[in-house]
């Protein structure tokens, strides 16, 4: 096994300018790779930027998806370290409104502790002191270390760092075809949408980091990725109705979270599955449900002015039979297509969530290092990323 990279470093082409692609570019640059990242639109314009902005403590997954919960709490701590000053660290409250919620609480509380998530029981009175706009009928609450992120600016720190490290980041660049001969992927063919020029980008390895679009890209290489685009509707209303992230203390369901964002409050989310992540729509009945469910936690949301309603497609890994997406795990997976489809030079990373973008990148970079027999340890747990403004400012 070699210990250093060859003089002509390996060139990795990443397709997809979301949080995963950005974190992977950053990781690979730190490990000495040459990196080119292409994105068909603006960075973070697919799923990443449409995120409600929760930096997960993992509590939401503690009961049913322990693996995701542990991932979240670990990544939360790492991201706080490598992205200082990027989060509103006001913690989160899981509020119990009904007797059913209260009955669910012991399991929830114990599951949090078992997943390594600090949790604290909060009385009704204290909860109302912390969040005066909460439903006064609430029974109790649990405090967990949730935080708020800026869904574009946090990932942009990784792009900024990758760019400063020499990665070539190309938004507005559409992949028109994968260069593939004898089941070996050797690059991508792209069209630069800013000038219409088509060109080939040769690479030793192509990474598919297109999130819910992963299947569409994989098909170009004759590969299969079991990704279900599972959209959810989010609603932003005017007014900051809470300082902390407010969650409903019950099994995850529609409209169970309110995330404060500047002068807005974001209520999320619903869940269904689609074939094409470009064709989501915003069903008005889902928006209504966000209003209704959000108002159960914070009554003022019922009458708050609607600022925006939109849909975002989660990339969920799972069987094609999934119906709502709720039953699918929120964890991520890296596919080496040599192993899954007999295609060399092509790796897919998908699944996961905003909070785990760095871990997804680390896993993928580890896979890549193994493939090309390079020993280069991951540094993204320690290296502090540049502020998002560094992506633009010279």
């Amino acid at each position, binding site marked *: 096994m070699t210990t250093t990279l060859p003089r002509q470093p390996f060139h990795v082409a990443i397709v997809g300018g979301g949080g995963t692609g950005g974190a992977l570019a950053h990781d690979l640059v730190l490990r000495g790779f040459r990196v080119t990242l292409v994105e068909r*639109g*603006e*960075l*973070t*314009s697919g799923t990443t*930027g*449409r995120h409600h902005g929760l930096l997960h403590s993992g509590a939401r997954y503690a009961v049913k998806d322990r693996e995701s919960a542990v991932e979240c709490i670990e990544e939360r701590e790492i991201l706080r370290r490598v992205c200082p*000053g*990027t*989060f*509103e*660290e*006001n*913690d989160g409250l899981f509020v119990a409104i009904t007797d059913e919620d209260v009955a669910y609480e012991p399991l929830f509380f114990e599951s949090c502790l078992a997943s390594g998530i*600090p949790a*604290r029981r*909060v009385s009704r009175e*204290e909860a109302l*002191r*912390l*969040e*005066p*706009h909460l439903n006064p009928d609430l029974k109790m609450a649990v*405090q967990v270390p949730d935080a*708020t992120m*800026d*869904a*574009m600016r946090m990932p942009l720190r990784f792009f900024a760092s990758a760019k400063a490290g020499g990665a070539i980041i190309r938004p*507005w660049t*559409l992949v028109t075809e994968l260069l593939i001969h004898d089941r070996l992927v050797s690059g991508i063919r792209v069209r630069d*949408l*800013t*000038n*219409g020029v088509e060109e080939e980008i040769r690479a030793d390895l192509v990474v598919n980091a297109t999130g819910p679009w992963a299947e569409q890209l994989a098909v170009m290489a004759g590969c299969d990725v079991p990704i279900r685009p599972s959209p959810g509707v*989010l609603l*932003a209303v005017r007014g*900051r*109705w809470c*300082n902390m992230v407010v969650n409903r203390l019950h099994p995850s369901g529609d409209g169970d979270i309110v995330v*404060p*964002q*500047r*002068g*807005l409050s974001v209520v999320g989310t619903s869940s269904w599955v689609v074939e094409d992540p*470009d*064709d989501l*729509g*915003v*069903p*008005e009945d889902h928006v209504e449900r966000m209003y209704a469910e959000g108002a159960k936690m914070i009554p003022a949301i019922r009458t708050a002015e609607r*600022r*925006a*309603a*939109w849909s*975002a497609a989660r990339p969920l890994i799972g069987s094609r039979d999934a119906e709502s997406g709720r039953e699918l795990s929120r964890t991520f997976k890296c596919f080496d297509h040599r192993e899954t489809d007999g295609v060399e030079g092509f790796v897919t990373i998908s699944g996961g969530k905003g909070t785990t973008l760095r871990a997804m990148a680390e896993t993928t970079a580890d896979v890549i290092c193994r493939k090309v027999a390079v020993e280069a340890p991951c540094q993204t747990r320690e290296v502090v990323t540049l*502020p*998002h*403004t*560094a992506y*633009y400012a010279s």
Partner: protein
Amino acid sequence: MTETVTDARTTRVVVSRRKEGDDHGALRYDTFDVAVGPRTTILDALVAIRRELDPTLTFRHSCFHASCGTCGMRVDGREGLACVTPVPAGDEVTVEPLGNLPVVSDLVVDMDAFYDDFDDAGRPLVRASETIPGAARAEGVDELERYEDCIECGICLSACPVAGSDPRYVGPAALAAAWRVVEEPRGLDPGPVVRLMDDEQAAWRCHLAWECSEACPSGVDPAAAIMRLRRSAVGARAHRLFSFGGNR
């Protein structure tokens, strides 16, 4: 977006197009007929155009809810975030890139110049001053935090008539950011920021058209920030004057 509404109508969307490859970036306008519902935004319309009519159309967008600030553009001559600007009533709407910044492609502007000035102000992304009166801090939370209101969209710069005439002006966003540092120094010395902005091309360049504050989609009021920055600058000058060079 597939709006399943009964009162759908068709609007002609006139989009400013400019590609580096076209005659050195010659400007032209393309028209697209788009079906819109009562809730269709300009961004929805652009996404639909790209998906169904012209995949080469380029525009910036990310969050879809006025939080990221990427989709600032000019709709019928007025700045706004495409994601929260409804397609106006009428048969036609014109969409153009922000003014006062170089156009990269179609509706995409180059934000580098914006951030060059903005970054000098050194404003943190998260502020400590809180907005919900009477809210207590939870155990383990050192201080309640919230993001700064400014979403760095460039709309104020586009609306500013002075920046429209002279690109040397650092512009409303950078000045508003500087004022935030003065207003909430968080342990830092705001003196250098005040001195940096006490300049003919900074705080003193503003001619009070107030267009920035009117156009701001995030309630920042950069114009008032500029005026307060001027007061700080005059105060600092007076202080230096009457301390007889003691600061030197």
